[in-house]
């Protein structure tokens, strides 16, 4: 197992290198000129050319690429072309809202969706099952921004239970943190509950038809014990996969949710950087997102082994 993990970590290096190359080339092929953006609307072409030279954007592409790679190897991801702020500092300041949202959303979603999915499978064809499926369809179908606006309108504007927008670090205190993370969490949770509950129900239905479940019932085990110990554990692999991918999706940016609730997360940072052609920021954020996917996939694979002893990696 340990060897497998090491092997996966080493395998990630060429993957990251390939992502870096593709991102770098795609950005250079995209129309737009950071120097023109930096200079402003009234700048003349001559002034823009001067700024372009100063930023090194006139250098050959291979020089720019290896300069960037060499910087990263030394832990220097560069500075924003616009603000001059170090890229790592910008990303670090945007990590907390995104990670907070991801953790609260996934935790709440799992707590709600897995029992719902189990119950729906257990009570297949009943009103409960249909209700869970209806909830699932609604969760998938209603755009996140609509749910967000409804949440704000009701809980923030009407009842005044929560602020409309913004983020406060948990280091500022639990109350201000919860005030601001609750509504975006609830908004995203509906989507993830729909996804996880559906997968849980489908997997459970498959397992509940297996012979060993019938055997468990024949042994006289309680319904709860059969469901939780024998059925749920055996259908945990697809559930874990969906949870892992869902987590990675949030980390790599939920722009609409971040915009509606004005959360200064990685999604907004990415969009802003792309619109401003802020190359160092875009490159670093996309590399980070790739890294998150690699790590999450590795953790999912490790979880498989823990949850299902039949799975072995060579």
């Amino acid at each position, binding site marked *: 197992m340990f060897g497998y993990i090491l092997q996966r970590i080493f395998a990630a290096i060429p993957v990251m290198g390939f992502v870096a190359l593709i991102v770098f080339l795609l950005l250079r092929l*995209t*129309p*737009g*000129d950071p120097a*023109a*953006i*930096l*200079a*402003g*609307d*009234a*700048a*003349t*072409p*001559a*002034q*823009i050319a*001067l*700024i372009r030279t*100063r930023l090194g954007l006139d250098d050959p592409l291979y020089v720019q690429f290896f300069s960037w790679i060499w910087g990263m190897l030394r832990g220097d991801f560069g500075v*924003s072309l*616009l*603000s*001059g*702020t170090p890229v790592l500092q*910008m990303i670090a*300041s*945007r990590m907390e809202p995104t990670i907070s949202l991801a953790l609260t959303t996934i935790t709440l979603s799992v707590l709600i969706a897995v029992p719902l999915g189990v119950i729906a499978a257990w009570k297949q064809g009943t009103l409960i099952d249909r209700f869970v499926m209806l909830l699932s369809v609604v969760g998938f179908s209603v755009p996140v921004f609509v749910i967000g*606006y409804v949440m*704000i*309108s009701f809980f*923030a*504007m*009407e*009842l*005044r*239970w*929560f*602020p*409309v*927008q*913004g983020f406060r670090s948990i280091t500022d205190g639990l*109350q*201000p943190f*919860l*005030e601001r993370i*609750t509504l975006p969490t609830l908004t995203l949770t509906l989507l993830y509950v729909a996804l996880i509950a559906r997968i849980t129900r489908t997997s459970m239905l498959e397992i509940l038809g297996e012979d060993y479940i019938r055997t468990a019932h024949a042994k006289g085990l309680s319904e709860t014990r059969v469901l939780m110990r024998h059925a749920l554990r055996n259908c945990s692999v697809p559930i874990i996969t969906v949870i892992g991918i869902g987590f990675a999706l949030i980390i790599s940016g939920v722009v609409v949710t971040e*915009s*509606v*609730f*004005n959360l*200064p997360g990685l999604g*907004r*940072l990415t969009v*802003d950087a792309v*619109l*401003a*052609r802020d190359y160092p920021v875009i490159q670093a954020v996309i590399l980070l997102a790739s890294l998150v996917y690699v790590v999450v996939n590795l953790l999912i694979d490790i979880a498989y082994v823990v949850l299902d002893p039949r799975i072995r990696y060579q």
Partner: protein
Amino acid sequence: MIPGLSNMLGGLSRPVVLMAATASALVMATPLSADTLRAVKHSALRVLDPIMTTAYMSRNHGYMIYDTLFALDENMEAQPQMVDSYEVSDDGLEYRFTLRDGLMFHDGAPVTGEDVAASIARWGERDAMGQLLMSFVADMGQDDEDANVFVMTLSEPYGLVIDSLAKPSSNVPFIMPARLAANTPSTEQVPEQIGSGPFRWVEDEFQPGVVAVYEKFEEYVPRDEEPSWGAGGKVVHVDRVEWIVMPDDQTKLNALMAGEIDYWEDASADLLPILQSDPDIEVANLNALGYQTIMRPNALHAPFDDARIRRAAILAVHQQDVMDAMIGNPDLYVLCGAMFICGTPLESDVGGQTLVDGSGQDQARALLEEAGYDGTPIVLMHPTDVSTLRTQPVVVAQALRDVGFEVDLQAMDWQTLVGRRANQAPPADGGWNMFITNWVGADVFNPIVNNMVGGQGSEGGWFGWPEDAPLEELRLAYAKAPSLEDQQQLAAQIQEHVYEQGYYAPIGQYFVMTAWRGELEGVLEGPAPYFWNIRRAD
């Protein structure tokens, strides 16, 4: 219990209701600090040097932390700001400016004539009006005997010295320490944010794209006069100002109505009825000069290398159509053929009547026929990601088609347009024929600051690059004009000439409303947003 909550929870058990009430008490929104002004601006602050860039957010940042030698008041007259007094020699060649006592930078250093000279020199490298001023300056610097005096010596008399130093919009001649201004090329950002303005930059709390924070500069000594635009006393009544970035208009609206922010600089026209119906919100147009939206042909390439075809394009357009589609609400725009903005001393309708009354289409068709227009498609760049720029190209394209133009309306994002418009190649090789943009009125309100009435050509001219020596002579004559009457006459001549040559056309003048919480008092009007003089009512 919160009104309405008991009804909602009526069907729930008592413990659940108690839990909900406890939760609501726990998470009730924290009230705003009375000493902090929270404002949502039109965009995010990213570039911190208002000399290096012409971006309006950087200009606004400049007004917070820097001060200016002079500033325009609401009558558009230049008034001393950092300057206490000044003298002009009888021959008009020497200007001696004495600075006010007590001026101090945020690092504690006094403001001297050396700082002023270095700042003006750097601004003069970058800004069009500054460059013209510098072309008249033979020498400038701190007085040998008095560090509080700045002396500027001209090579010949120039009528716009004070107007140049009072320039209200990008680039504004802000004064910064000589150690920064003299050692930082104008194509690089200054490494520190040190000014002598009424607010101090809070470096540690700056998050690009999220928030910019300013604190009151306690040592700032305001003038005694009443504030008027950028002139007069800059008295700060709050401890701290936060510029919060919010990408979504609906969120801004909700946050303002809920009292989470105090000020929304560019309230969305669609949401104005909601804001105006809220008794706790004030809504007003703070910038009487408004914005000018313009169309700019590229004079380098066919078919717009022919003045008749450029003129035909302008004759094809009716401002009413553009404004109806872009703004809709007639209270928020005026039809105005004046290149130097309606409502300014240089306002003139010469040459622009067809834009206002929409009567130019027949002339346009005749001109196209006379010029032998061969159907070459007009590459009109269409930025679809900027709400204030996405409508006009569609209307203009249709107007051009109506008189016989072939139009290739190319959708792109604004930053692609910004990069592409610097390309002087033919449209087939990545160039372009026409684009549309918007200007703050103060950036186009005279022939020196208005980039589109220049004739410098492809070397040094603004995008579109017409080369026109007589036009440059007219601008120079305007710069030297001894009186307002002469300036008005020359500005009208310039406007007439530019219309005849079809170098550019204003296709509407519109206004953006600002909304703020009703408890705020003293919100100032002006060509840029100012944050001094604002206080929270008791």
